[in-house]
């Protein structure tokens, strides 16, 4: 699909999604979850799919986004908008540091270091009552005033959907750019990339920092739409749920991560059938999809489309010509 057509199609689908969830408060709740998961999955997708770097601190980055908003709302409500750059900066510096200290080690070390950090942040949120409110979290989070306009819940959700579209589109652009090529090349041949002059370690650190910024936005959306934050929204379980999404949807495009988020929410929260044994069913479902279509849902769909088109083309060739 051409870049312009992909942008138009995904924009239309995003607007359609927004109109669909407008109809009830319950659907809006689910829609918010889709936005939050999609942003987290996109944050994970960027370093994972482009650079091959697996970071597992996404619960921590989301928590930074949510809690910085909550703390600003409690302590300095007039400066609430300032929470956005502050939280993003904290996350990016953290992610860059974690990437920097493990830059010469294997991907396994990065995964372990980031996971430990994520667990530590959750423990800290639970136990530092004075700052984070401990187990009960922080409530009464205010809505920011954007240039004199106070967005209501529906507008906030609309902004969230647009944010997902913007970021997925931006990552799709990055993939094909020179930096994207350098990222994907160093994942497969560090030797070739370095010999060409690509600063491979710096590139990986940059991708990790950018991914953490996107996950931070997820936490902010959650805090602003719900008006409260709880530490148990940011356990390590969140990371493993989100880890499925880009893989399930397909790693070839960032839209796979978004589709993965949508499927997870639809199956684990939307349908009664999956309510009870949801986690197990979902795990088996993912396994099934990956066995049938190793490239994920979108990858499988693309392969199917190609085969159908080839089939039609072959069918059009007159019998005698074969």
């Amino acid at each position, binding site marked *: 699909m051409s870049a312009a057509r992909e942008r138009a199609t995904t924009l239309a689908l995003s607007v359609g999604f927004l109109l669909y969830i407008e109809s009830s408060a319950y659907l809006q709740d689910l829609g918010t979850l889709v936005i939050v998961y999609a942003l987290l999955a996109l944050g994970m997708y960027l370093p994972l799919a482009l650079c091959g770097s697996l970071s597992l601190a996404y619960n921590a980055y989301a928590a930074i986004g949510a809690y910085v908003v909550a703390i600003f709302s409690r302590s300095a409500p007039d400066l609430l908008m300032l929470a956005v750059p502050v939280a993003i900066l904290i996350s990016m510096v953290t992610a860059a540091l974690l990437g920097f200290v493990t830059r010469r080690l294997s991907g396994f070390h990065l995964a372990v270091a980031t996971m430990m950090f994520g667990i530590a942040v959750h423990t800290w949120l639970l136990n530092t009552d004075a700052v984070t409110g401990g187990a009960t979290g922080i409530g009464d989070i205010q809505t920011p005033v954007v240039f004199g306009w106070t967005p209501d819940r529906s507008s906030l959700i609309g902004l969230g959907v647009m944010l997902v579209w913007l970021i997925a589109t931006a990552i799709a*652009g990055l993939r094909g750019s*020179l930096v994207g090529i350098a990222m994907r090349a160093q994942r497969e041949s560090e030797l*070739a990339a370095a010999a060409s002059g690509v600063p491979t370690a710096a590139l990986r650190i*940059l991708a990790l920092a950018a991914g953490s910024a996107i996950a931070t936005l997820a936490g902010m959306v959650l805090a602003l739409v719900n008006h409260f934050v709880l530490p148990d929204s940011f356990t390590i379980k969140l990371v493993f749920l989100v880890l499925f999404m880009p893989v399930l949807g397909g790693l070839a495009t960032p839209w796979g991560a978004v589709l993965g988020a949508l499927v997870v929410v639809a199956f684990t929260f939307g349908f009664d059938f999956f309510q009870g044994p949801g986690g197990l069913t979902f795990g088996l479902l993912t396994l099934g999809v990956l066995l049938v279509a190793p490239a994920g849902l979108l990858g499988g769909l693309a392969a199917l489309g190609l085969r159908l088109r080839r089939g039609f083309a072959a069918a059009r060739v007159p019998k005698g010509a074969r």
Partner: protein
Amino acid sequence: MTALRCTDIRKAYGGVDVLQGVGFAVSAGEIFGLCGANGAGKTTLMDIIGGQQTHDTGVIELDGRTLVGDVASRAHAGLARTFQRPQVAADLTLRENIALGLAGARLGSVGQLVRGFVAGMLARTTVAIELVETAATDLSLDRLDRRAGDVTFGELRLVELARALLQRPRLIMLDEPFSGVGDNGIEAIVEALRRLRARGCAILLIDHNVDLLTALADRMALLAQGEIVVTGTVAACLADEVFRRIYVGAV
């Protein structure tokens, strides 16, 4: 003008001497051929210059400046190379693999990196397609949308060379660039190297094919047991007793 100068390079692998004080110089606009039997240490020497390997003692200078630092910084100092076993990103297309040379050249500093990152996110910056296409066509490469993992070894050598050319190097090092390449490809490489030489690029060329090497090189050196045993103009080498006995005689 001297582009590359190596002085007294020594290297041992686990107590075994591989290079025992190698010194030579390559001028700008010169093709310098390096030959020697299997295991003589040719690739090791190239790896040391490129930064893929460390060396024990000795100095490497490029354009009069000591060449130190990691592989990427040496590339930005003007060095490009290909590998004896072609190194490409198998899952990327030929076009993307060639464009990697442009990417590397344009992503030197952290500032360039961040700017390139933001530009890539804001719009689908069309990767300077013409440059990539021209570099490929010059080397008789076509159908650039193929995965690098799906093409022949010979084609990968051409991809590597095209990638290296896009770095606009001051010194290019080629490790057996002709092996596995078809006749069209060999002709294209020879043409490309002559154009590079005319442009003032220094070329260090390893190959076992003495006929090709002597036809192409300006000067050459024969490496044996980690030492340069014969060096000089091609004519001088071909007239040399030792060179004839060790190398030409052996082929």
